[in-house]
């Protein structure tokens, strides 16, 4: 694995108060350079807090974060030179036009007037915003505003781009456009760290995913490897009329060649298996004897992985 551009060690964050909240509870993370890295977890898992600390907007209770070798707690102002940030909410400058939003960002990061204007024009073109250059952010749709935020965040050529819940509030079409824009960043050598509670998003664009819950990392790997860890590449959910003799059926199904696991789910059984011809027919025939009502076939997703690890649904 190549060198880590983001190094998080023993990170903890406790929000003091009458009822102290431990938002991040000992996170270690190494993000290799050049990847799109996802922090996947439900709301309140500690993803945003982790990103806030890494982007100098929160002070950790313990632990350290180094980005490109710079300690973000000790040298926040310098760390900001090597990171770009797109927070969850729209932080576009409402008093400035689309052009000026990027232009002044470039100026803050020390570019000359000419270099800033050039970079702005290039980014507006790259993110297909040129025709809206004179518009104000209030006039942009959610999808365009998000693209502008990404364009602005990378204007100073950061090494790492942090995206906090980038597709929150976007319609499906804008989400896909955003995914394309993020994936295009690979070509520029920018490492992307994003948080999401959409498993499809993590699956679709991330090279590696860390699943995070209650402030801890549960598992960390590529989406493919995570899905393979479920123990089967096909899942049959069997809905039964009642659950009589389900214990017996469970045993019988487990004996079928290709089935790797059988487990009880609400209203029936779940069969995990290696996909092969005729397997579904065998499972259905067997289950029919016990009152099969319906069967759904799915492939393992990161959601399955999450449920397996926590016993909960991502959306809970």
């Amino acid at each position, binding site marked *: 694995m190549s060198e880590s551009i983001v190094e998080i060690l023993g990170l903890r964050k406790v929000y003091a108060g009458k009822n102290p909240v431990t938002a991040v509870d000992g996170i270690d993370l190494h993000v290799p350079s050049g990847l799109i890295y996802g922090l996947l977890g439900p709301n309140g898992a500690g993803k945003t807090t982790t990103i806030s600390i890494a982007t100098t907007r929160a002070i950790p209770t313990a632990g350290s974060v180094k980005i490109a070798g710079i300690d973000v707690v000790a040298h926040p*102002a310098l760390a*900001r030179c090597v990171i770009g940030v797109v927070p969850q909410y729209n932080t576009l400058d409402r008093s400035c036009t689309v052009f000026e939003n990027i232009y002044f960002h470039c*100026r803050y990061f020390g570019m000359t007037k000419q270099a800033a204007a050039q970079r702005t024009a290039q980014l507006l073109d790259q993110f297909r915003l040129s025709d809206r250059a004179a518009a104000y952010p209030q006039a942009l749709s959610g999808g365009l505003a998000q693209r502008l935020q990404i364009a602005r965040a990378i204007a100073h050529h950061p090494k790492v781009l942090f995206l906090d819940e980038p597709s929150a509030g976007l319609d499906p079409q804008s989400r896909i456009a955003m995914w394309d824009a993020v994936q295009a960043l690979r070509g520029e050598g920018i490492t992307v760290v994003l948080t999401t509670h959409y498993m499809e998003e993590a699956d679709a664009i991330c090279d590696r995913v860390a699943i995070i819950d209650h402030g801890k990392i549960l598992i960390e790997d590529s989406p493919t490897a995570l899905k393979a860890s479920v123990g089967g590449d096909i899942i049959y959910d069997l809905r039964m009329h009642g659950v009589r003799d389900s214990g017996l059926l469970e045993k019988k199904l487990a004996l079928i060649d290709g089935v790797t696991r059988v487990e009880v789910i609400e209203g029936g059984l779940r069969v995990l298996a290696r996909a092969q011809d005729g397997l579904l027919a065998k499972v259905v025939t067997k289950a029919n004897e016990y009152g099969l009502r319906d069967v759904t076939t799915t492939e393992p997703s990161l959601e399955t992985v999450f449920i397996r690890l926590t016993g909960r649904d991502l959306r809970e």
Partner: protein
Amino acid sequence: MSEAMTNSNDTKFVVYTRAFIGLLQRDFRVLTREIVPFLIRIAMNPLLFLFVFTFVMPHMTGGSSMSPTAGMAAAGGGGFGTVLLPGLMAVAIMFSGIAAVALPLAQEFGVTREIDDRVMCPLPIGAVAIEKIVFSAIQSIFAAAVVFPLAYYIPSTPVLAHVPSWWFFIAVLVLASLLAGALGLTIGTFVQPKQIGLIFGVVIMPITFLGCVYYPWAALSSIKWLQIGVLINPIVYITEGLRAALTPTIGHMPDATILAMLLFFFVLLTLMGLRGFANRVIS
């Protein structure tokens, strides 16, 4: 690490300075686009105040006797206009600080969270807040400059203004403007965004009416408790400072006291404002 910057040999100081200048340029750009509302905002209060109290009322039969400080001003030379000139300039300076810092901050902390964008600039958080004070001070000086001709020419009785020491005048003007920005920063960071509307009643009206704007501090001698009580109001030192610098014929506090107190309140409010700002943007 410095590939991200334009020049890898840049020192920290250079990086910070460029970011600071960038922030100022952005603020100037926005201000020039909103120059008309800005002028209306700073000119309307003194314009109407002067028109009614120093032009309309003196023209009414017996109107001059309605002027609250007629006797006092006559004793010191010059009419109510002479009392009002430094007072209204002080109000313009103070209000610019509120309008340039406190009100935008309330919006940026509350609805839009735009402040997060400014906070991500490559300079210390405190410098982002200092930039707001500096830019606000520039607006305050401009506001004072707009009020001066109005307050000088509108009153029907001549205003007795002369500047005994330009150094003193400039020192008062600059300190007062910085103080106003620091006051705006403190208010903007300590008041909850949704309660920002209340500051007009709770802060601005009391500090204006009890800020020796419409009467000189010395004239409060007949109400001793009030004369001492208003000393905690920083606006008092702005008005008295401008009074000492511009209309010295009217009784005022000693120059050294004024400068010392302006400096004291500037430092105090800046420290409070910086602390409030950091608390708001860093968790």
